[in-house]
């Protein structure tokens, strides 16, 4: 059993590669763009591309959430921030003294990317045996028995999981959003005392 075996029509294949190339290109544009507004536009294209990849990976719900939250929310937020600090539209080029930073950045990027490539190259092996062992350890810590497992349906929908198995992290995430809301409002508010 291979890690991933997927049969796609030739058209889907072409589309897939188009989206891939578009995503990488726009990501690169984000970082090299001279004007910060251009970087933000490139970022929205990149987000669109990633959401397209999600569709290919059968994660439809995430693709929609990606569109709504990132393209609809975060990009708008970033645009606002750019407008507020508008006279620095110039994104700040790399002055001569920053060869060190440039080199360090490029080296990090290169190391991360090649190691990812090397690692995924090794991934052509069955997964199940390993996964079973990890899951037995998981069962041991958590105290789930085989009977509990048999009672569970085998595949749960995302919504079911979010409202069942992962309800607690979901609630904890609401604390995070509360903290962010409180903090963001408080730090940009003009009048503070009184």
């Amino acid at each position, binding site marked *: 059993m291979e890690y991933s075996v997927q049969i796609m029509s030739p058209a889907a294949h072409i589309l897939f590669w188009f989206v891939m190339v578009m995503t990488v290109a726009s990501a690169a544009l984000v970082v090299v763009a001279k004007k910060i507004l251009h970087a933000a536009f490139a970022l929205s294209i990149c987000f669109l591309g990633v959401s397209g990849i999600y569709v290919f990976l059968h994660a439809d719900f995430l693709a929609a959430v990606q569109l709504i939250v990132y393209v609809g929310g975060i990009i708008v937020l970033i645009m606002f921030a750019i407008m507020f600090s508008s006279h620095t539209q110039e994104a700040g080029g790399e002055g001569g003294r920053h060869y060190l930073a440039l080199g360090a950045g490029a080296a990090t990027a290169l190391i991360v990317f090649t190691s990812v490539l*090397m*690692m995924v190259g090794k991934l052509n092996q069955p*997964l199940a045996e*390993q996964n079973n062992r990890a899951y037995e*350890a998981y069962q041991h810590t*958590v105290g789930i028995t085989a009977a509990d497992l048999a009672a569970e349906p085998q595949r749960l929908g995302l919504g079911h999981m979010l409202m069942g198995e992962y309800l607690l*992290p979901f609630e904890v995430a609401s*604390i995070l959003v509360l*903290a962010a809301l409180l903090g963001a409002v408080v730090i940009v508010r003009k009048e*503070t005392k009184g």
Partner: protein
Amino acid sequence: MNWSQLVELLPVGVVLAAALVVVFLQLVLPAKERYVLPMAAMAGCLLGLGALAQNYLSLNQFLKGGLPWFAALAQPSGHSPAILNGAFVIDGFGISIAAVALIAGALSVLCASHNDDDSALGKGEYYGLVLLAVAGMMLLGFSHDFLTLLISLEIMSVSTYILAGSERENVRSGESAMKYLVLGAFSSAFLMLGMAFVFGATGSLSLSPVFLLPNDPRNYLVMGGFGLILVGMLFKVGAVPFHFWVPDVYQGAPTGVTGLMAVGVKAAGFAMVARILLETFGAPVFRFQWTGLIAAAAVVTMALGNFIALRQSSVKRLLAYSGIAHTGYLLLAFLVQKNANAAMVEESLRAVSFYLVAYGLMTLGAFGVVSLTREDGRTLENLEDYNGLAKEHPALALCMAAFMLSLAGLPPFSGFFAKFMVFRSAIDNGFVLPAVLGILTSVASLYYYLRVVLRMYMPEEGSVAARCQYAWTSNLLIYASGLGSVLLGVAPHLMMGMK
């Protein structure tokens, strides 16, 4: 899922409730009655501590003294510390981390309560964010899967970013927030990518140990994931080579927030390090591979932190570098040899807990004194500002001297015993060289701690006398931490005897 187990997270619930109450009170109370806000926040911290103690005692009684110190070391036959499907664990280690976080939160509240002039935030929001950060730290101490761990970490970080920038008119405070934010988010991204790789290899989000056959190709994935997670974690605890953000962030942030970062954030960071290193990657085959890295990081961190601290003129910056050095000492405790048994690992983790409590008390006290030496709404943080403090405020100077000597690791104070336990744990596990280097750097550190003490007791000729505010709340807290430092130093079994 057994929702009745939520009761065991009651201390976190109490702190969260207090946060909401404080923010709400800020909205409804008229200005002259806002003095109840710090009281409410303090009450939240104290109630949280009470709930934590009650939790600990009742669990210990229920389990006949067998509450596991660390979840990964729990006997398979015994009581499982995991609650809520393994999302959290309630063990002795997590409880000690939560206690440190609550004490740090209490200090941060007190520091803000006595200076009305410079914090741009409404007090209610400030206290609310402190309590939210504390709740994040407590949750991080108890987290037992990657998802809850990450969310707790972010609750803590997001609140602390804002708190660091809470003196909005102060350029340094904004700069501190900005640096902390960019580097914190950057390191979180590395942490998350590492988690993604480990998930890809094991298919599980739990922190339970990774098992792999030596020839399994997914070893590469786990190794890469481990490397990324290690980078993220060393960033968060401020170890060399990822320490460069610490001095600027600590110096620029308001002093109370610096105390919260130096103690609470560091304790929670080490909770994450302990859970991931000793549990997820705690299998002997992995331990063999990371002990060398951790030993190197520990040695470089102690050496560099102490060395740069020698030439600092700002007390806040000095304490920041001293904090880096202490991160190095703490990392020493994670050096457990390949074939160590559960008892030895538990001994090391007890050393970590004791160190965090002792370091927490003395650092909080020291930052408390720094926050009191202020004039015209501005913190006086240079060494010269401490000239002759002993004459003007003998009790404060005595406490400050105790904190400094304790940080240096001199015998009657808790710092000595904390360092002793850490070095002993490293030597027991066969890491003699790092431990010896630790002792040497610790002797060298005496120089800069004594500089502060000498300034207070033997002022330079013709210098301006030190000026200090008086606030009974902060003074009370400083005396309490001084007392605690001495008490843990002469009677360490008070905490270690819980076994």
